[in-house]
């Protein structure tokens, strides 16, 4: 349906805040891209610039090759779903959905048909005459989604639409949204700061930090091959051990491991599930601080002699005890230097 092209877009608030900083991204036809990042990383600001609610300080935004930067929101082919409180509470569900269609001067029977279709799409058939306050939080967000969908926008923008809902509902709704989006083949940008949400829905994920792109990748790649220590730490759990490389060996306190890169500082990255531990006879490399039993597996908190803590996953929690000395054996790992990957073991997971 449509291609969204963002080139060199920046947004400054005052002179100090660079909410979005020289951002480039192309979202392909029918693709669902998640914007993922910590609070304040500029996700909403970027989305609002695409929707026309903020004016970029620099850069260009095109939809199917047409520059939209100078268009107000009401003239952009985008549809935005807000986090909450966006329904018009003085109108019932039908009127909420029909409002945009009426502005487009469609005949009444066509409006009725379209509204009924979209209500069916979001699973709210028969809810047209409800007042908005007679809906649950999840139903309200579905109406908000339907209100955008009914206008068949070229680009669908969702800004944490399920953030105010509970875990279960969120999971169900994101599957529904994914289904609808794929069925309609609608180009979509989805803002979230939940990595589960991003990993389960997105074709590609953009990890943002301080208004800049940290990494763009498919969900599986993002998990397996994080490009920076930030991404590594942000997606899933990652032990990031800061230390020195000396003569092909990474050293931090009592922990050391072969690392075939030049001497100098480095960050050693290993996921808990890739960090094997074994009971040590003497001092060992680390000492178990705490063991947490999750039934299916256990999580062991390790403490290096210098006080830094790391995690390792074990299959049976009851095999381990706090205070026990252990040796560490990374099965797969990566090393970062200067905010980039310096080494990745062949079986990195």
């Amino acid at each position, binding site marked *: 349906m449509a291609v969204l092209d963002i080139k060199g877009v920046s947004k400054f608030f005052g002179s100090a805040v660079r909410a979005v900083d020289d951002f480039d991204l192309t979202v392909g036809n029918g693709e669902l891209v998640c914007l993922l990042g910590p609070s304040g990383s500029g996700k909403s600001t970027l989305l609002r610039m695409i929707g026309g609610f903020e004016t970029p300080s620099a850069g260009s935004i095109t939809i199917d090759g047409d520059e939209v930067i100078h268009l107000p929101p*009401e003239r952009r082919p*985008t549809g935005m779903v807000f986090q909450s409180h966006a*329904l018009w*509470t003085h109108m019932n569900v039908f009127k909420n959905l029909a*409002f*945009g269609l009426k*502005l487009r001067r469609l005949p009444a029977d066509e409006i009725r048909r379209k509204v009924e279709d979209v209500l069916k799409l979001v699973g709210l058939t028969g809810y047209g005459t409800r*007042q908005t306050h007679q809906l649950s939080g999840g139903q309200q967000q579905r109406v908000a989604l339907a209100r955008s969908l009914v206008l068949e926008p070229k680009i669908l923008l969702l800004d944490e639409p399920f953030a105010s809902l509970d875990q279960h509902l969120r999971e169900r709704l994101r599957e529904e949204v994914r289904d609808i989006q794929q069925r309609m083949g609608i180009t979509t940008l989805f803002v979230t700061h939940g990595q589960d949400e991003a990993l389960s829905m997105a074709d590609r994920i953009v990890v943002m930090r301080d208004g800049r792109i940290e990494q763009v990748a498919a969900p599986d790649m993002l998990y397996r091959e994080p490009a920076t220590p930030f991404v590594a730490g942000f997606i899933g759990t990652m032990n990031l051990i800061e230390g020195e490389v000396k003569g092909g060996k990474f050293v931090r306190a009592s922990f050391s491991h072969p690392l075939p890169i030049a001497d100098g500082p480095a960050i050693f990255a290993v996921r808990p599930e890739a960090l094997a531990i074994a009971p040590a006879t003497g001092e060992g490399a680390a000492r178990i601080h705490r063991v947490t039993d999750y039934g299916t597996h256990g999580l062991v908190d390790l403490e290096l002699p210098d006080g830094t803590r790391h995690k390792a996953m074990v299959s049976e929690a009851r095999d381990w005890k706090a205070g026990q000395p252990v040796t560490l054996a990374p099965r797969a790992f990566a090393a970062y230097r200067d905010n980039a990957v310096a080494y990745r073991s062949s079986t990195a997971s």
Partner: protein
Amino acid sequence: MSLSPTSDIVGASKKSGGLIGLLLVAVPVLLIGWMIIYPIIAAVITTLWLRNDAGAYVFSTQTYRFFFTDGYSLANLGLTLWTTVVCAIILLVVCLPIALYLRFATGRLAVYVQGLAIFPLFVPSIILSYAFIRVLGPNGMLDILLNAAHLPKIRSPYLTPWGPVIGLVWDHIPLTVLILMAGLGSVSDASIEAAKDVGAGPVTRLWYIILPRISNSILVAASFAVLGIFSAFTLPYVLGPAAPEMMGPFMQRTFRDLYDPPNAITQAVVSFGFCIVFGLFYVRSVVRNQRAR
């Protein structure tokens, strides 16, 4: 909406036994009964049971018949209604843009505008009146400025019906702006941006999204303005014409200068009758609003 707190109290009392709720409302209700309801009833009685020559009290509608057949009294009532309606319309026309601006503008200027809009709240009417004479009165500041620009003098509104209108509008701007802003506060940014998103221009947004959401506030603001203006005294007294005069000065004069309590109270009861009509409008809308929710 923000200006119907009683709904919550009543709602809560229904759930939690009611007794505490009743006690909570008992004090204001008793105060209203003592200080408002009782004087009203007393006033109606005083004007309907008049002392005849023999010294006995007999039922008589004479003071009301006098009021409604006396051209002078009716002219005063007419002027009061005219002033009230004109003021209410001007107030909404003036205050709605200010409130909208204050709701949606950001930055330094909005702070100053808000300060200015609230400022009249702190100026006593009597000071306002004399400032009015100095600025808009004959040979006042405006005339001096016009003269400096080689323009003709204005026909001063001082001592004409427009004098009180201008003064009362100025006086009621803060309250009206505050009430409208309270209403606008309940219109979320997201709901307005959502309207932009589906293609609504500024006028459509105002008419279909914003105004319906604050219709209750508009009604409250209008009711407050009407009730305040109908019984206004100082500004009509100082700035208005000698005749016809608004009900406030008329009542006061009848009572104090003509030593005529029965007719003064009659005028008060008639004024009250008109005010209660506006009051009922307001109550009806609040009730209807709650039922809709």
